[in-house]
């Protein structure tokens, strides 16, 4: 059309916009963080000085007491053990020294800090019977203050990352709704007009450049249609005044020749052309998934706080119940809702799904016990399944078959981005405002997601559609007769989902808490998984496609995911757990997309009989079984050998699955031929 719709020009403009926004957000948050840390340093140091003074006074009094009872300063017994004891309970103190009247250090405990130490040295005289016998020197730990301040810096970095991702999501939506979608409309309508089709007008939703352009075009189209209608009226007048049939035919011929070449509106009103954009659901979906992801780092801890002993059930199993109930609800609700979703359309379904989610989160915030919480999580799970389906359905409806993969990538992009930000921010909020309040925030975010959808997706923009074929019980029999499919499900899909919910959602937060980590720190660790999947999944998918090695990538990826969880056996530490989550994330990022690509390849006959979508639906349902049993498997393993054995056990399960999957394909000499055959159209 014009240079504006040229993709290179648009890309350049979008890149400039994103670079500008990113740079300024980073600079702004960086400046704010620097100034905040400076203010904290200024204000917290005097408080530490006061504490050091209290400690110094106490030590001086004890030494003076001994001296007043006749024990010489240099012959005091057990002073260093006493100072060590004082040090142990006060992490903010770096060292305590006792110097005699001549300034020689006689007793000391703790360590000498780095260069900045001297600025934080507090000296107090030791007076016995009115005479100075020495000095107490208390040094404040710079490391303690730095630790406190570094916590703030980590929080700032997380907030910055979250803000950037949210900014990008919002910009994408604003650009899609305010720029790309209208431009697409203009492009289509002007192109049609170029071929003589003047039936359409453009929507004027704003009074900006696009709105004004639309108004001008609408005037043009309206005038052309008016000219046409005037002609038709004149022709009709002439025709009615004639009794000669040949002249009537001549008049009709003139008009019909014109309408053969050009299309004009039939009535007085022009039809409004309103293109739909797949981006319309991206931001609401992002916010909705974000709300759920926020509870990941602290949910098991929250459940543990609500736990009261239940006869015949261990605490670990009880903690797993709400997590499993959530997953089970998703597994059960998905096929049920799938059958009716298309009748109501994605917009209505999203809004219906948001209701139980909001109630579920607010209910979770005020849960009085374990069973209350299970009920609320079931509601949240139902809402989650409905909203997820609604968005997936919307993308499928509003993307052409050739661009459906891009649509799904956009959909998954929102899910992954939420997976990166949600746990991190949720952990920080749980630490600062409490776990219950964080659930309320999740509820608020669901409300925001619903409002965003109402704004972005007008009710008249989409039509309910006829549904696709739904999964039936008999489909499972057809699909599971394929050994390749069964191997994929049993060795790869189920073990990995067991580990995802069992390890990442259930075990990791509890284990990290046991190792002394705060919810913020747990959130940061869990963010690693989200970051790996968000960054590496597209790269791994592209690589697997280019080398046509889905099977190998899946085997290696799952092997890595399992292997990374084994080193915890060496020593239960946060560092090794971080390594585990990192490998788990990398492994899953490598295998998620190739796994899906393997589904049709592993059962070409079933695909031919039932269609790819149904086979994929069966795969998803079977995979979710793993999600449901994951927390129970983890709690069983914790009961056997504690969190270390449970973590390693999860790793061993995934690793064993990967090895068996690899061996299965090695043992089937014809498998490659089948794979390539399955790939052909």
């Amino acid at each position, binding site marked *: 059309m*014009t240079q504006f719709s040229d993709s290179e020009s648009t890309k350049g*403009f979008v890149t400039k916009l994103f670079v500008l926004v990113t740079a300024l957000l980073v600079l702004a*948050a960086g400046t704010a963080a620097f100034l905040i840390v400076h203010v904290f340093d200024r204000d917290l140091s005097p408080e530490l000085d006061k504490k050091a003074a209290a400690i110094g006074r106490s030590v001086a009094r004890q030494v003076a007491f001994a001296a007043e009872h006749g024990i010489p300063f240099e012959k005091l017994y057990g002073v260093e053990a006493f100072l060590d004891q004082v040090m142990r309970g006060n992490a903010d103190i770096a060292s305590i020294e006792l110097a005699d009247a001549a300034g020689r250090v006689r007793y000391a405990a703790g360590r000498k800090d780095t260069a900045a130490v001297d600025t934080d040295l507090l000296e107090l005289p030791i007076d016995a019977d009115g005479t100075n016998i020495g000095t107490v020197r208390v040094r404040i730990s710079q490391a303690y203050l730095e630790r406190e301040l570094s916590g703030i810096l980590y929080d700032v970095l997380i907030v910055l990352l979250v*803000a950037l991702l949210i900014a990008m999501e919002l910009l994408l939506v604003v650009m899609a709704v305010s720029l790309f979608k209208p431009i697409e409309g203009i492009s289509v309508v002007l192109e049609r007009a170029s*071929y003589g089709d003047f039936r359409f007008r453009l929507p004027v939703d704003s009074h900006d450049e696009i709105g004004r*352009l639309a108004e001008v075009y609408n005037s*043009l189209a309206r005038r*052309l249609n008016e000219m046409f209608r005037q002609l038709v009226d004149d022709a009709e007048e002439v025709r009615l005044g004639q009794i000669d049939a040949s002249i009537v035919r001549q008049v009709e011929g*003139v*008009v019909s020749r014109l309408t053969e070449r050009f299309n004009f509106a039939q009535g007085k009103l022009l039809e409004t052309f309103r293109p739909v954009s797949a981006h319309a659901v991206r931001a609401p979906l992002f916010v909705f998934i974000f709300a759920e992801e926020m509870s990941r780092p602290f949910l098991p801890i929250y459940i543990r706080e609500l736990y009261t002993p239940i006869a015949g059930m261990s605490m670990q199993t009880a903690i797993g119940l709400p997590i499993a109930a959530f997953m089970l609800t998703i597994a059960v609700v998905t096929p049920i809702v799938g059958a009716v979703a298309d009748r109501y359309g994605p917009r209505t379904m999203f809004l219906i799904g948001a209701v139980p989610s909001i109630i579920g989160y607010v209910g979770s915030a005020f849960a009085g016990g374990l069973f209350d919480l299970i009920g609320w999580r079931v509601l949240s799970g139902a809402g989650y399944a409905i909203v997820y389906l609604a968005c997936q359905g919307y993308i499928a409806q509003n993307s052409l078959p050739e661009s459906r993969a891009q649509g799904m990538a956009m959909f998954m992009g929102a899910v992954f981005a939420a997976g990166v930000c949600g746990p991190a921010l949720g952990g920080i909020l749980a630490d600062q405002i409490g776990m219950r309040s964080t659930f309320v925030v999740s509820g608020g975010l669901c409300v925001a997601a619903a409002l965003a959808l109402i704004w972005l997706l007008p009710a008249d923009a989409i039509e309910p559609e006829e549904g696709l074929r739904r999964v039936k019980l008999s489909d499972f029999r057809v699909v599971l007769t394929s050994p390749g499919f069964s191997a994929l499900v049993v060795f790869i899909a189920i073990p990995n989902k067991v580990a995802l919910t069992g390890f990442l959602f259930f075990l990791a937060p509890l284990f990290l808490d046991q190792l002394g980590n705060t919810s913020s720190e747990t959130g940061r660790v869990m963010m690693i998984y989200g970051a790996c999947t968000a960054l590496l999944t597209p790269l791994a998918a592209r690589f697997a496609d280019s080398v046509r090695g889905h099977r190998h990538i899946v085997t290696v990826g799952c092997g890595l995911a399992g292997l990374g969880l084994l080193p915890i056996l060496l020593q239960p530490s946060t560092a090794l757990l971080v390594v585990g989550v990192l490998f788990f994330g990398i492994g899953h990022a490598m295998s998620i997309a190739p796994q899906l690509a393997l589904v049709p390849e592993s059962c070409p006959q079933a695909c031919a009989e039932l269609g790819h979508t149904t086979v994929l639906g069966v795969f998803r349902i079977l995979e979710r079984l793993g999600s449901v049993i994951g927390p129970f498997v983890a709690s069983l393993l914790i009961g056997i050998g504690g969190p270390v054995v449970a973590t390693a056990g999860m790793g061993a399960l995934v690793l064993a699955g990967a090895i068996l999957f690899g061996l299965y394909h090695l043992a089937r000499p014809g498998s490659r031929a089948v794979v390539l055959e399955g790939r052909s159209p």
Partner: protein
Amino acid sequence: MFSGLTGRIIITVVAVLLCAVGLTSLLGYNKYKLALANIVEGRFRFVLGDIKNTLDVSVNLGVALADLRNLQELLDREKTADDQIQLIEVFDADGTVVFSTDRSNVGQVLPEDWVQLAFLTTTEAWKLHEEDGHVIGLTLISSFGAPLGGVIVSYSHAAIDQKLAQIGLDLGQITVGVIAGYGIVLVFGLIIVLGRPRRQLESMRQSIGQFLVPGGVAVPSVTDIDHLKVSVKAAVGAIDEANRKIQEIDGST
């Protein structure tokens, strides 16, 4: 200015900037609050532990609480050394105050819930939030494991509140300053970046606008949307031709 495309993008980005910097400040404030509370409480816990250790030495030697000499002096000295301390008291197994920095309290009985909490929490310090301050306490246990009484330190939260108010003000200023400073840069940056697409859209509008003349549609001589020009020209020409033919037919009869 803010109703157009540029305005919408500016509002979105500035809102994100506001949220990012605002959230950073809010989280920083909460972190500071927690850190300050920890440091201040740590200080009073130390003072409390120190007094308890002194008491333990005497109690373990079999001296009754009420008979401890020099204790009053120690309590007074600690209170004087720290202006945030409101009160230090030592109470016996009945909850009766035996030593206090406020002499008028000696002989009075501590509130029932304090005493209950003190004798329920014997292994670690206990804490209460009162209207005018915080109270932390430690229980004294005899060498036979029986509770003998306890010691409490009450400290004012006015100083903490004052510090928090000051830090809130400082953070507010930082937030406003950063948002204002970077907001202005952002607005100008966005206006520049969005200038080109705006100019292109305006050029398109003008091109299409040239078709429009009062009462009809004209074919302009200059336009960059050639296909549309050709199509409109053809449509206008065809309608004119059709009109002419109909008039001819009408006139010939």
